[in-house]
């Protein structure tokens, strides 16, 4: 991602504190060193990346490392507290919580990746086009995007998800609709300022076509912002997906999913079986936090003033 930012020609002045010591970790892993030289922001990105990567990895290899089949009921007695046989205990259906925690990230990851892709595919071209076109076209898109943006996101996602019905794609669509305006707004405001830069003027004066100016001269400079928005949005998408699942609009009851485990655990609160909700809840937090950290670090690097 950093290569994208640097190669994009975006002249961001990296304000570095000179007294950053080179740490062991950064000298061990080449590539990390350039990140850690960016100070705290770099470490946030590294930490976030490690969190996200390990969750993705665990989810991917869970079929081989999970001690039990996560969907199978009655592998143990119901509601056993954590013990040596069931590390995180069992839920009310006698399913192994540990196995479910290992494999329960699949749906959330799929939904969030898909919704970010949809947002990118719609929000980015629309933002580029609208701000470049200007005038009435821009006014029109802005008004629509502002209306969606002002709407309580989760409420809108609920309405769409309720109509579209269950399914990974449907859930991703309902989340994407809510967040397209965020992409649109960021890209639009970026293009508005880039558009006025002398080198764009020069390209136009040299006779470059509108499409060329947009794709060759303006777009590369917007890429850093897109990366930042998309990372931050990953966290939002995950939390929204968890929320939709929690109120009963989840993808499927049969596939292990942290969101569903939390929904199920709510009924069991009174029994004091904390392990049924604690572990899946922590996993959602770790995943969302990972993306938030990456986003936080990247946006701080792209705009050092934020640090203050």
């Amino acid at each position, binding site marked *: 991602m950093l290569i994208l930012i640097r190669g994009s020609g975006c002249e961001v002045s990296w304000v570095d504190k000179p007294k950053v010591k080179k740490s062991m970790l950064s000298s061990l892993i080449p590539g990390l060193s350039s990140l850690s030289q960016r100070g705290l922001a770099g470490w946030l990105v590294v930490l976030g990346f490690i969190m996200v990567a390990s969750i993705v990895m665990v989810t991917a290899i869970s079929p081989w490392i999970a001690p039990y089949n996560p969907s199978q009921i009655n592998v143990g007695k119901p509601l056993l507290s954590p013990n040596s046989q069931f590390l995180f205990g069992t839920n009310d259906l006698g399913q192994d919580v540990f196995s479910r925690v290992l494999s329960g990230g699949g749906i959330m990851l799929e939904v969030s990746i898909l919704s970010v892709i949809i947002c990118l595919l719609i929000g980015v071209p629309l933002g580029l086009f609208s701000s470049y076109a200007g005038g009435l076209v821009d006014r029109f898109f802005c008004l629509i995007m502002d209306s969606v943006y*002002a709407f309580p*996101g989760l409420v*809108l996602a609920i309405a769409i998800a309720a*109509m*579209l019905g269950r399914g990974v794609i449907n859930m991703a669509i309902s989340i994407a609709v809510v967040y397209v305006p965020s992409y649109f707004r960021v890209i639009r405001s970026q293009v508005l300022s880039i558009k006025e830069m002398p080198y764009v003027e020069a390209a136009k004066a040299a006779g470059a076509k509108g499409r060329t100016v947009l794709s060759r001269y303006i777009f590369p400079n917007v890429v850093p912002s897109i990366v930042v928005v998309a990372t931050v949005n990953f966290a939002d998408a995950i939390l929204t997906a*968890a929320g939709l699942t929690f109120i009963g609009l989840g993808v499927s009851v049969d596939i292990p999913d942290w969101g569903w485990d939390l929904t199920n655990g709510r009924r069991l609160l009174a029994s004091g079986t904390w392990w049924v909700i604690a572990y899946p809840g922590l996993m959602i937090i770790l995943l*969302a936090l990972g993306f938030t950290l990456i986003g936080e670090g990247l946006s701080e690097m792209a705009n050092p003033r934020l640090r*203050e």
Partner: protein
Amino acid sequence: MTLRTYVISRILLTIPMIFILLTMVFLVIRVLPGDPVLLHFEKQENPAAMEAMRRRLGLDKPLWVQYFDYLFGLFRGDLGESMQDYSSVTQQILSAFPATLELAIFSMVIAVSMGIFLGVEASKGYGKTRDSVIRISGIVTYAIPVFFLGMVFQMVFGLGLHWLPVGLRLPPRIDIPSGLNVGSVHFSTGLYTIDSLLEGNVFKFVEALRYLALPSLTLGLVLSGVFIRLTRSNMFETLRLDYVTAARARGLSETTVTYGYALRNAFLPVLTMMGLQFATLLGGAILTETTFSWPGLGRYIVDRINFRDYTAIQGAVVFFGIFVSVVSLVVDLLYAYLDPRIRL
């Protein structure tokens, strides 16, 4: 631009936004793939009953007629009839709304006061441990799903330690606060804290607060991160300004300088953010209400989803949308009133 011109133009700007919003909701419920009536009956299709429902709710008319019926209905404050029992959706929403409003107000107060306090504290110790700890906790709270935090609070402070009650707005054995009753004049807001004070019943007021505590703390805490960050960066800039130095030079205490002088200037962006965060707050309220069995509009929507009652869902979504637009309008007007630069 005078304040009056600003107010008028801002109100005029809200109208197309609400209109687009209404159209959007209509498109989502009526035009997206999935026939609401068919979905309502789910697997047990019953052609006669379905036909009757379509006729009763006007869903058999052409789409554009439905659209205008819907808009004119809204104009009269009519959100249609519920698919469940044909009762008035407007009535149901209005009876559930005060609970949500009360939760939203208290959560916002908690989020803002906590955000301002921690933000100020962080800005005082810029770059020090205190600052880093507050910043990191702000980031972490952002990543916590509000319903999970609600469940943890419920389990620890409610069911575990028995400090605070969990679920509903008052104990079942207590009557709903009646509000103000003077002779034949009756006035109640639906907000239990206010109604109990109007009734003059301190016991009910305390109970209402106790029941509000956990849900609003949950929602407020999750929302506070945004305000911490905003206050911190604004305070940091303001504290470096000359007039703050001048105040310090006059020998005023640090508390007076930060809260009495600097915070005044740093507060305006916080006000704008309050307007912007209100939409997020209502989204969070839906989840919080579900966690705490809080009988508000969020619970209403979730219930209606389970009954596949699409007219009610549509009504509630529209209501949420209009409410948020009005709140953001009010916040903007308040901002203009407080900040004379807007009027220039």
